[in-house]
C-alpha cells in the first residue's frame, strides 16, 4: 500500500528566510504527488502537483517542489517566506489503483515569525 511520510511535524522559521518541508512516499510504481495548504479554519487548497515531465514543479504563492524518484521524495521549498505562509502543509499521493482518493501525510505546521 502506498503511504506518505512528512518528516517534520513543525517547522519554525523567521520571515524572509528560506524553508523546506520534507515529504517521502512509498510506492513501487508511478505516482502523482500533491502539496496542499490548510489555513486556520479553512479547507485544503492545492499548492502544486507533479504528474510527469519536469521534476521541478512550480506552484502558487512562490512555492516549488522537486520530485526525486531515486529518493522517493517530493520536498516543498520557498526561498523567502512571509508571515502569511503560516499554515498546515500536507503532502499527498494519488494511488495508481481503482479509486482516486488521495493518501495524505500527517502534515507539517509551518510557523513564520517576525
Amino acid at each position, binding site marked *: 500500500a502506498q503511504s*506518505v511520510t512528512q518528516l517534520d511535524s513543525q517547522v519554525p522559521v523567521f520571515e524572509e528566510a528560506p524553508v523546506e518541508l520534507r515529504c517521502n512516499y512509498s510506492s513501487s510504481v508511478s505516482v*502523482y504527488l500533491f502539496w*496542499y495548504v490548510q489555513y486556520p*479554519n*479553512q*479547507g*485544503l*487548497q*492545492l499548492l502544486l*502537483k507533479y*504528474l510527469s515531465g519536469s521534476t521541478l514543479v512550480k506552484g502558487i504563492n512562490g512555492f516549488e517542489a522537486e520530485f526525486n524518484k531515486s529518493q522517493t521524495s517530493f520536498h516543498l521549498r520557498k526561498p523567502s517566506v512571509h508571515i502569511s505562509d503560516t499554515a498546515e502543509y*500536507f503532502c*499527498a499521493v*494519488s*494511488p*495508481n489503483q*481503482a*479509486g*482516486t*482518493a*488521495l493518501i*495524505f*501525510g*500527517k*502534515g507539517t505546521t509551518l510557523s513564520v515569525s517576525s
Partner: protein
Amino acid sequence: EAGVAQSPRYKIIEKRQSVAFWCNPISGHATLYWYQQILGQGPKLLIQFQNNGVVDDSQLPKDRFSAERLKGVDSTLKIQPAKLEDSAVYLCASSIAGGRADTQYFGPGTRLTVL
C-alpha cells in the same frame, strides 16, 4: 465560481446521538469525496462518489456511518450513534471527473465534537 459548500461549520453532540453533515460540490463536478481529519493527522477518505454511485467506501465504518449523494449533486454524511472517537473535522471535496490527476477542491469542513 462558487467553491465547495458545507454545513454546519461546527457541531457539538453527546455520544450516542446522531448527526448529519451536508455538502454541495462545485457545479458540474462528477466526483465527491468525504474525508475525516482527526486532530494531528492528515485527511483520510471515508467515501467516494462518482455521480450518484459509490466508488470506494472501504474505510467507512458502516455500522454507524452512512452517506448518500442524491441526484449526483448534494451529499449527506450521517453518524448514528456517535462515539467519542468520531470527534474530527469532516471535509468534503469534489473534482471534475475523478481522474487521478484531477485537482480535488475542498470545502471548509465541519468540526464535530462528541462529548
